[in-house]
């Protein structure tokens, strides 16, 4: 006969208001096998837990039922209390008489009856509970960081400095991300490259960081502590073990007119190129779409169309026949830091609502550029050598107009959110402009100035009060090309005046969006993302750098629009989580996993087909001589999430979830 203790909680008034807790305790206490029953105002409080411990000690209980709130709420609390008193924690269960009873009923008599029934069911289950031991699984103390922008670099450095191994994967030929394109950064106006490049070099040279640039995550399997990642190294057409980055190949490349991605189309590059002089690694790639040799090959020319780069390369590093290659790595944790792209007002997006902006010319007016293009114009290493010159005719603009919230805060056009960084970089742009064009006038059309951050509002006010930018409160209705100016039709709601400005250059602060391809990456990782494609955090307030998948973390602008300090602190937060995980030798998991009765398993593998987590493996059963007798199913305890689908599917009932066996469930249902 069992010796079960029942503890009924009032949860203040939450349960007590609709359920007669004393009556529940009394009724359950009379059941066979129940040797103790009590009710208390707050069972989760210290004195409440003390009641449980006392009863275990006094009455030698071999099972505990707490009739209270949801097990999601306090199962851990009571199991810990039992464990502290020397009882196996898995002999303690909760009957949910709050969410499942008191909160959803009004009739006190009937609610009390239902609470008793729920308690009775769990008592019958607990009578059949077995003591279980938590599962321990080893942790691979290596992390994968996806994305080599400032967030990824920071996360990689923090993890590596903390003792973990890191594999840093970057899609582009160089790490550095968008931060490497910026001229100066708000609110201190320090040079972006000057503070970033030391970090890039540090990440490249760190003994515990393996940098894989021009590579992408191809496939991911496994689980926290034990992920298997397949990485595709895109063919650079240059052997990175031979190349010393001398740059001779780029000098001789005949195709010098390809719009440079790094210069946002404002500068030109060759077909064999490094994106920018400080690139890390400083190894060129051949852009096969634009290379004469590869274009020739595509046309089926027998003769090699070019090949000058290979001829000039003293180290024979150029390899036109290089193919994509793959590496598999085992990692214990993953940090997603894939960053952002800017919304393009040209009509390009494959999205019902993101159809660009006709009123702003769909990107056809040459003197209408976006914020990143302005960064390149203002950058000393940019295509104009740091002079603000407009794209159409290379003249210095004397009247420049900045438009905020282009694409952002515009639900009709698909993006309802605020892109957060634009207010600040627009203020910065007006200052950079003023510093370079002393007799120029900057205008800003804005809806609100959102400058929350240390030193941010002061910075934005400085742009207005000291640097002479004229801020006009309102959205611009349209841009129109007229002779050599762009007519800006706007309004100033503060004065009630409509305003037309003949601008020499217009800069659009377009919305921040997640990188293209984020959805397919998220699907590979089994992490969720929102309607805009931003990766979802596990909890918006309390778990901001974790995803819903254990062992996968998120940092930077792939989670939401973020500026540099936010991205960096998020990256350090994610790195801390990874290091916290790595500080354990083994991972402890709940033992509620499926177990196969090998003696009875027929080896039909229905369970393997239905398992959503790929946890079922084949296991060979051999005799003493090593001869294979038969193959049975085996559940990988590290992968199993305890969903029970296999248990429901197995024709011979030989796979069962520990803690939720058929016997337990039937007994509970019968007792209702």
């Amino acid at each position, binding site marked *: 006969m069992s010796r079960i203790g029942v503890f009924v909680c009032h949860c203040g008034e939450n349960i007590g208001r609709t359920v007669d807790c004393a009556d529940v305790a009394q009724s359950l206490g009379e059941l066979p096998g129940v040797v103790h029953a009590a009710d208390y105002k707050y069972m989760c409080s210290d004195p409440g837990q003390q009641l449980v411990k006392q009863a275990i000690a006094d009455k030698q209980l071999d099972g505990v039922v707490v009739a209270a709130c949801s097990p999601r709420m306090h199962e851990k609390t009571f199991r810990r209390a039992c464990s502290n008193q020397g009882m196996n924690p898995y002999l303690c269960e909760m009957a949910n008489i709050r969410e499942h009873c008191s909160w959803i009923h009004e009739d006190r008599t009937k609610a009390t009856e239902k609470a008793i029934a729920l308690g009775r069911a769990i008592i019958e289950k607990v009578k059949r509970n077995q003591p279980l031991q938590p599962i321990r699984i080893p942790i691979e103390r290596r992390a994968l960081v996806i994305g080599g922008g400032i967030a990824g670099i920071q996360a990689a450095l923090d993890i590596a400095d903390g003792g973990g191994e890191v594999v840093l994967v970057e899609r582009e030929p160089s790490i550095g991300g968008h931060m490497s394109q910026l001229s100066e950064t708000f609110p201190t106006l320090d040079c972006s490259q000057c503070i970033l490049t030391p970090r890039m070099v540090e990440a490249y040279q760190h003994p515990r960081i393996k940098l894989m640039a021009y590579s992408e995550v191809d496939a991911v399997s496994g689980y926290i502590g034990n992920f298997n990642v397949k990485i595709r190294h895109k063919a650079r057409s240059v052997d990175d073990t031979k190349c010393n980055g001398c740059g001779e190949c780029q000098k001789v490349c005949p195709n010098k007119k390809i719009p440079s991605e790094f210069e946002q189309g404002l500068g030109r590059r060759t077909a064999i190129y490094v994106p920018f002089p400080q690139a890390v690694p400083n190894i060129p790639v051949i852009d096969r779409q634009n290379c004469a040799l590869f274009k020739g090959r595509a046309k089926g020319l027998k003769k090699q169309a070019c090949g000058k780069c290979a001829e000039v390369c003293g180290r024979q590093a150029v390899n036109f026949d290089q193919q994509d290659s793959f590496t598999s790595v085992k990692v214990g944790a993953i940090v997603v830091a894939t960053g952002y792209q800017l919304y393009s007002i040209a009509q390009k997006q494959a999205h019902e609502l993101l159809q660009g902006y006709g009123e702003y010319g769909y990107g056809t007016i040459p003197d209408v550029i976006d914020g990143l293009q302005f960064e390149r114009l203002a950058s000393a290493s940019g295509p104009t050598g740091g002079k603000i010159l407009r794209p159409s005719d290379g003249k210095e603009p004397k009247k420049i107009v900045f438009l905020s919230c282009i694409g952002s805060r515009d639900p009709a056009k698909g993006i309802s959110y605020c892109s957060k960084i634009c207010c600040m970089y627009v203020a910065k742009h007006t200052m950079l402009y003023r510093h370079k064009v002393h007799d120029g006038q900057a205008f800003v059309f804005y809806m609100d100035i959102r400058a929350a951050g240390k030193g941010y509002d002061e910075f934005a006010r400085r742009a207005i009060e000291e640097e002479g930018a004229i801020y006009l409160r309102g959205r611009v209705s349209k841009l129109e090309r007229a002779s050599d100016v762009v007519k800006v039709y706007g309004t100033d709601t503060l*004065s009630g005046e*409509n305003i*037309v400005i003949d601008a020499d250059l217009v800069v659009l602060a377009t919305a921040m969006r997640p990188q293209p391809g984020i959805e397919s990456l998220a699907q590979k990782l089994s992490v969720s993302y929102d309607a805009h494609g931003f990766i979802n955090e596990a909890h918006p307030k309390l778990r901001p750098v974790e995803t819903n998948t254990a062992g996968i973390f998120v940092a930077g602008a792939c989670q939401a629009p973020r500026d540099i300090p936010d991205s960096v602190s998020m990256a350090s937060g994610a790195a801390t989580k990874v290091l916290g995980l790595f500080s354990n030798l083994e991972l402890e998991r709940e033992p509620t996993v499926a177990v196969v009765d090998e003696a009875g398993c027929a080896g039909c593998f229905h369970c393997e087909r239905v398992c959503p987590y790929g946890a079922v493996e084949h296991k060979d059963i051999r005799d003493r001589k090593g001869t294979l007798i038969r193959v049975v199913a085996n559940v990988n305890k590290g992968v199993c999430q305890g969903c029970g689908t296999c248990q429901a599917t197995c024709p011979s009932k030989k796979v069962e979830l520990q803690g939720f066996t058929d016997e337990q469930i039937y007994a509970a249902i019968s007792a209702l």
Partner: protein
Amino acid sequence: MSASEPVPTHHDPSLSGEINKLTGLNVAACYQCGKCSAGCPMAAEMPRKPHQLLRLVQLNQRQAVLSDSSLWLCLTCETCTSRCPNQVDPARLIDGLRELAFQQDPTLAPLKQRAFHQAFLHQIKSHGRVFELGLVVDYKLKSGALLDDALQAPGMLWRGKLALMPNNIEGKAEVRRIFEACEHVAGEEIPS
């Protein structure tokens, strides 16, 4: 300027610049919170409230500001200035705008307000203080509003609020010298 029809901005950089030269104020510091107008005792009477005047100065809408009668309704109580969160000093600004308006065209101020200001200054210049009956008569002659508030007079006389003879202050000569010094600096006689 009509709201439906966009009109080019007048890039007259001199208005905010001129105000700065005249008063030392930085009108760009105003972030249009509206606290000045919220506390202004005359706001209800003003066609444009203090923060709206300020906005027009920021946008260099010279004509609109200088011809606005609101400028002349300000009592210079300085509630706006003492409450302004960004030290803009709207009262000083309005004073400066009055000076600019007066320089541009003395008739820009509405007749009644102009008459009152002139009559008031004339009283100070003559007596060192206000001789109410003299002020009333002077104002009525200048403004032509002969019968306005006439029914108030008997009651005020009865209560002794209107003296029949002026009562000069002791330092009347010094006050006169202040006026002469100001006129000397301005290069013209203070109109009275």
